């Protein structure tokens, strides 16, 4: 009884130590894992030897050999079982199949290991009677321990594989998300409003039947407008002249759609024409004016753009009439002017460059552009 109990303790100690060691064998920390793994096995081998030598009182040589052969071989088996796991992956085999396979494999591996090593020891050295007896009696016990160890390690390795897979998926997701954000940002940069594009194309399609000359004109206008929006990526600043030209193209395209529901007037001081402004800075203001003005009214909306030169700044005013009885269909639709405010702040390092004035009939946005010496990019 004492023999069995102590053996059991020895075996369980191996067992527990092994469990703790394999847990640390993560892919990322594989090297550290390896070092720990082999060091621990060494310690176990030493304990194993000590137990045999001093508790079972077996001869020195036999104790050393027993410990050395069994532990070293088992350490190797344990270490390389990971390849078995990768081969018999969860992707290709059902859990039930894997359980069956490993249940049998464990038994085979364990038995082979115990008997194989036993033969090795028997043939390498002349054994004492005590030890021979011990060797024989402990075989079944070692098989059981080996089997349990095998199953333990197999399960842990599968868990490690699952964890790694999960980590890989998280990383993949993170990459996707950042790519999406990039794409979203790019879309925002281009500021292409799909409703505008498709409705304009629809108008062109219609005009192809009724007035092909106008259809051609509108196509060109649309192309020119789109070219300007793409330009925004390359050039940070344009002359006010150019900016107004782009915005006017947009208004004209919209006017073709809405015919008499949109009237506009542009008034630019000659001095303002060459002043550099951030590219597409006025576009959101115009889109806003049309969205809250024309889109929510059945009557004619008047849009105006004025530009005046003052002491050390240029003032641009974008105003529109609107229907004050209209309720917007969706809540929480801000005016989208925050982005414009931020852009102005980034370009000129000044706050309060954008002001809004709302009366019963008019909505006006004013932008101040400080005059500073900046190169106008061609």
């Amino acid at each position, binding site marked *: 009884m004492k023999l069995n109990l102590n053996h059991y303790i020895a075996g369980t100690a191996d067992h527990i130590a092994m469990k703790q060691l394999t847990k640390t064998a993560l892919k990322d920390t594989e090297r550290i894992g390896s070092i720990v793994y082999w060091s621990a096995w060494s310690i176990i081998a030493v304990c194993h030897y000590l137990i045999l030598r001093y508790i079972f009182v077996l001869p020195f040589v036999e104790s050393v050999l027993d410990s050395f052969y069994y532990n070293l071989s088992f350490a190797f088996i344990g270490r390389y079982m990971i390849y078995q796991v990768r081969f018999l992956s969860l992707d290709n085999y059902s859990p039930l199949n894997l359980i069956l396979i490993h249940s049998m494999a464990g038994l085979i591996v364990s038995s082979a290991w115990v008997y194989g090593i036993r033969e090795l020891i028997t043939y390498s050295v002349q054994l004492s009677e005590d030890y021979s007896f011990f060797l024989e009696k402990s075989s079944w016990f070692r098989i059981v321990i080996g089997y349990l160890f095998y199953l333990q390690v197999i399960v842990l390795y599968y868990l490690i594989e699952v964890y790694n897979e999960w980590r890989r998926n998280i990383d993949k997701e993170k990459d996707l998300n950042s790519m999406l954000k990039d794409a979203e940002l790019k879309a925002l940069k281009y500021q292409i409003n799909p409703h505008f594009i498709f409705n304009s194309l629809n108008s062109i399609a219609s005009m192809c039947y009724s007035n092909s000359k106008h259809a051609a004109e509108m196509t060109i206008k649309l192309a020119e407008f789109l070219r300007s929006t793409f330009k925004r990526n390359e050039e940070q600043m344009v002359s006010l002249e150019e900016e107004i030209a782009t915005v006017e193209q947009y208004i004209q395209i919209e006017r073709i759609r809405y015919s008499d529901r949109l009237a506009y007037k542009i008034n630019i001081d000659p001095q303002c024409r060459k002043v550099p402004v951030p590219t597409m800075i006025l576009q959101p203001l115009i889109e806003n004016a049309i969205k809250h003005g024309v889109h929510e009214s*059945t009557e004619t909306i008047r849009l105006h753009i004025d530009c005046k030169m003052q002491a050390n700044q240029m003032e641009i005013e974008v105003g529109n009439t609107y229907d004050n009885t209209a*309720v917007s269909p969706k809540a929480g639709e801000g005016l989208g002017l925050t982005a414009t405010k931020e852009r102005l702040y980034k370009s000129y390092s000044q706050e309060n460059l954008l002001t809004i004035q709302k009366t019963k009939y008019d909505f006006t946005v004013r932008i101040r552009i400080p005059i500073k010496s900046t190169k106008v990019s061609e």
Partner: protein
Amino acid sequence: MKKTSIVIIDDEKLARDLVKTYLADYSEITIVGEAENAFEGLELVQKQQPDLILLDIQMPKLSGFEMLELLEKYPEIIFTTAFEEYAIKAFEVNAIDYLLKPFSKERFDLAMKKVLPLKVASSDRIEKIDQLMQDYNQSTPDLNRLVFKEGNQIHVISVNDLLYLEAQDDYVNCVTRNQYFLKNKTMKYFETHLDPKKFVRIHRSYIVNLDEMKSLDKTENDSYVLQTHTGKQLPVSRSGYSRLKEVINN
């Protein structure tokens, strides 16, 4: 042979013209009217009772869907829109045809083929379209306005004007300071589409606008009652009470 009558409702003349061009081939169809907004559209549909309407969804002040909410019975409908990120799914799920602008003659013909010959107005069609309207806005709680008819007058009110909503059989009674009107929608619809921080379902039959809440009182038999500024008393269920608490405390 009786001709099929059609009404074209779209706020852009060029869009309407294109449809008229496509319809030139259809000798069995007469265009009995054109409308450039939903108000005109409603009047036209009620007056002419067309067999089929081509309905643009995005229109000023009143959308195509909102116009449908004010109709007693629906004709056959083909919806048109330039761009809809989320709504396409709603159409497909409910097997209702839509045309994405700009659409080709071929695509138009396909839609017409599906719709003609006309079927008798079935309750199925009404259900499908009602379901489409429920599915349409992606169930985001950003409903900002409600429409209703008073005789021939169409009213559009902001949801902020609502005091509370009360369930009434298949309808919901919407009460404002000056009036009340019935909407053919479920309480669940309002619960999903109204801002939950402002509109709380305090009872199976009541949703209240929190701005209207004056006090919350406990009655003798351990239940709660909500007092509004207008002096109305609304019952509060147990789950309603916990919902209220959660919103108020946050």
